[in-house]
């Protein structure tokens, strides 16, 4: 079975500084894959490269059999990859509802709509007219996820969903993920919490200094293997 999303020897640069050194990555339809690693390991950069926010070399990323390297982010969204960015990054001048509507800008057909999102995250319906930034961290994260879902993606990329959130809120968010992925959504989640990552995903990649240090099935990797790959000791 050919992978839905595939990276081969992916390299990425910030100006002259190289951030990714040849990442090989595979994502199959319907599965949830987690990426773990220390700060600066290149996890966020990898997701940005997948969505076109960071340039990659030609033919290093293939989606649904076609190369998407070098395409602008707008094009990639239209093809069905959506990103929930690190730090939420809601639009400050827009209300909650308008933020969600922006997600639908690409007008991809699919099951997700405002109504469906409000069923998933009821608190957002109450606060729909408020500016996005007036919400708590956890609620903002819900908006960010909802915004990504509004583009009806086939692949959802989540960058550190629980950054800066209280544990009880984190649970609330992660409880919603199965509902999202139940309909065959393919997802990649970048996580700092290793045990959370193992629980939520089927396979794990561990990044270290811009390279893949370890990969395997979530339930078969041991503590030692993971900490070795994580810290490079």
């Amino acid at each position: 079975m050919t992978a839905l999303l595939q990276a081969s020897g992916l390299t990425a640069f910030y100006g002259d500084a190289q951030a990714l050194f040849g990442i090989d990555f595979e994502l199959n339809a319907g599965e949830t894959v987690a990426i773990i690693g220390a700060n600066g390991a290149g996890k966020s950069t990898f997701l940005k490269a997948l969505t076109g926010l960071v340039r990659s070399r030609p033919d290093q990323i293939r989606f649904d059999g076609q190369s998407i390297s070098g395409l602008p982010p707008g094009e990639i969204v239209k093809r069905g990859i959506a990103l929930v960015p690190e730090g939420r990054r809601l639009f400050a001048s827009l209300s909650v509802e308008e933020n969600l509507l922006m997600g639908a800008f690409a007008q991809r057909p699919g099951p997700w709509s405002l109504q469906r999102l409000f069923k998933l995250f009821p608190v957002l319906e109450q606060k729909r007219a408020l500016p996005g930034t007036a919400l708590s961290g956890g609620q903002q994260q819900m908006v960010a996820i909802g915004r990504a879902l509004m583009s009806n993606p086939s692949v959802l990329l989540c960058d550190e969903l629980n950054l800066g959130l209280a544990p009880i809120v984190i649970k609330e968010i992660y409880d919603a993920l199965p509902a999202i992925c139940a309909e065959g959504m393919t997802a990649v989640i970048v996580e700092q919490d290793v045990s959370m990552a193992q629980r939520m995903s089927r396979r794990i990649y561990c990044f270290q200094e811009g390279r893949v240090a370890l990969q395997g099935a979530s339930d078969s990797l041991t503590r030692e293997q993971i900490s070795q790959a994580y810290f490079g000791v």
Partner: protein
Amino acid sequence: MVETLLQGLLLGGLYCLFALGQSLMFGVMRLTNTAQGDFIILGSFAAIAGMNALAALGWNNGFASFAVMLALLPLAFGFGYALQRWVLNGTLGRDPLPSLVVTFGLSIVIQNLLLELFSADPRSIETGGLNTASIALPAGLAIGVLPLAIFTVALVATGALQWLFNGTRLGRAFRAVSDDKEIAELMGLNSHTVYAFATAIAFVLIALAGVLQGMRTTVSPADGPLLLLFAFEAVIIGGMGSFWGTLVGALLLGITQQIGFRIDPGWGIWIGHIVFLVVLVLRPQGLFPKTRG
């Protein structure tokens, strides 16, 4: 005194039209168009040229001026779109210098081009008497029909712009791309196109302002820079990020200048500048900075 206030308000309406385009361009893409005033004057002269052409064809009454104005608006839209897409988009970025230098260069090119084509003599747009007609009000006051019309246009334009921003898909796109260009592009927005639309709309306002200015008074090629300063002052006094704020700022500037002109013709503009500087020192964010909702 009431008459001075009234005249100041009506003058402020015109200044609002000068300022809306600037407010829009800065709000959406942080671009300071130092050629704002010169483009307005270009609009005036374009209308004058249009009038001359129509007169040569035998049509030269007051209605001709409105026909020219209507024809000018879509032209201005296209011109603004092209200018942003192919010249100004290349100057955007964290450094404000390139956009400043390029628009400044455009300012010089426009002034000298107009000088070459029309000479330095002041001209105006023939309105068939509209610019001298007036309406009588109670208490012996009178206001000009044209200034009142300009004020009304300013009100409508401000309301329309505010509605565009808050109630339409394009307005959402403007606000989104201004908040976070990278994430907006992630949503499928093409920032280059969005910026071009913003400038296109700004230029419609510029053309409108130019034609009305040419009807109200005489224009000459070197008038641009002063109009830029007025537009800028209106935006700062009112507070950035709000079109109604720009209107209020423009009205205040108009009133201040009129009071100054009454005291002494040489001091009108000076007093406007001083009030602007005072507002800048005491309340740098303006009177009505960006409010949500």
